């Protein structure tokens, strides 16, 4: 039994809990309910991301620029949280970044293709929050979304908000 498995189990349990609670009070879930669940999960991820990045960068020197931060997220942060590095980072050099992970650790247990595609967003909300939380503590306000077309590969889109 590894610690990574523990986190994955806990994550699954949290997702299932949030959706069950919402369902229990409403019966049928509409899009508004689904959005509420996603935002609860994203919020939880945000706090965790903030805490983690603090621990991770405690002894590091400060970053040169935004790109430097994003590279750190793709390598060090991703390794710490998802046990691998991001496979591909693209940017338009104007504040939008796309991070592609071809074997996203929280999706590998779900399916290896298109099955359960509609369930994938539930399992990505927390992670989006974690990225947003990490960036927030590094001084960057952002909007983070994720999309999946074939599991377990997924793309995170980060748009840095200019003040």
């Amino acid at each position, binding site marked *: *039994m*590894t*610690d*990574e498995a*523990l*986190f994955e*189990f*806990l*994550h699954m*349990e*949290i997702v299932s*809990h949030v959706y069950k*609670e919402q369902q229990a009070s409403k019966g049928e879930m509409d899009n508004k309910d689904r959005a509420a669940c996603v935002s*609860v999960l994203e*919020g*939880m*991820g945000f*706090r*965790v991301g903030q*805490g*983690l990045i603090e*621990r*991770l960068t405690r*002894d*590091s020197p400060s970053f040169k620029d935004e790109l*430097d931060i994003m*590279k*750190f997220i793709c*390598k*060090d942060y991703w*390794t*710490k*949280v998802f046990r691998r590095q991001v496979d591909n980072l693209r940017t338009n050099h104007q504040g939008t970044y796309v991070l592609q992970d071809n074997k996203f650790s929280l999706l590998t247990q779900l399916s290896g293709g298109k099955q359960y595609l509609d369930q994938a967003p539930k399992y990505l909300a927390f992670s989006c929050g974690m990225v947003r939380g990490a960036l927030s503590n590094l001084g960057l306000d952002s909007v983070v979304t994720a999309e999946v077309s074939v599991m377990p590969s997924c793309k995170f889109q980060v748009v840095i908000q200019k003040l």
Partner: protein
Amino acid sequence: MSRQSNRTTDSKKMNSELFTLTYGALVTQLCKDYENDEEVNKQLDKMRLIEDFLARSIGRCQDFRETADVIAKVIGKFQANQNVSGVTPSVTNWSPAGDEFSLILENNPLVDFVELPDNHNTLIYSNLLCGVLRGALEMVQMAVDVRFVQDTLRGDNVTEIRMKFIKRIEENLPAGDE
């Protein structure tokens, strides 16, 4: 890009932080969703985590004493993974009838960096652990009562979990009979 932190030696501790922080976020969310601590305790108790694994480890035990040792070992391994300094929890305070014992943990890996605010005196932060232990034992046909007797979060020196064997669950009877 070169960050000079000793990543390899710290990686185990980092993963435990991920779990601990996530657990903390969960408890915080539950406190927001439910008005009283009792309800939060109940929700934590209901969650299922590693019962399967625990049950498989316990499965072949002949008696309650052996079960106690296996549980202590599994928790000890979990602590070693979390890089928590300390030993395997000790199994002590056996009742004369041999049906009740205490697990003493010097370090509770769930509570790193946690402080309980004053208005949550009755919150059993680590209640997830009780639910998991009880659930695992139910899977091997044992009905057991699991309680926190001492909690480092509430100022005690150690964390003590008391486990009491209630009865063997017969396959044909519904499990929720106690």
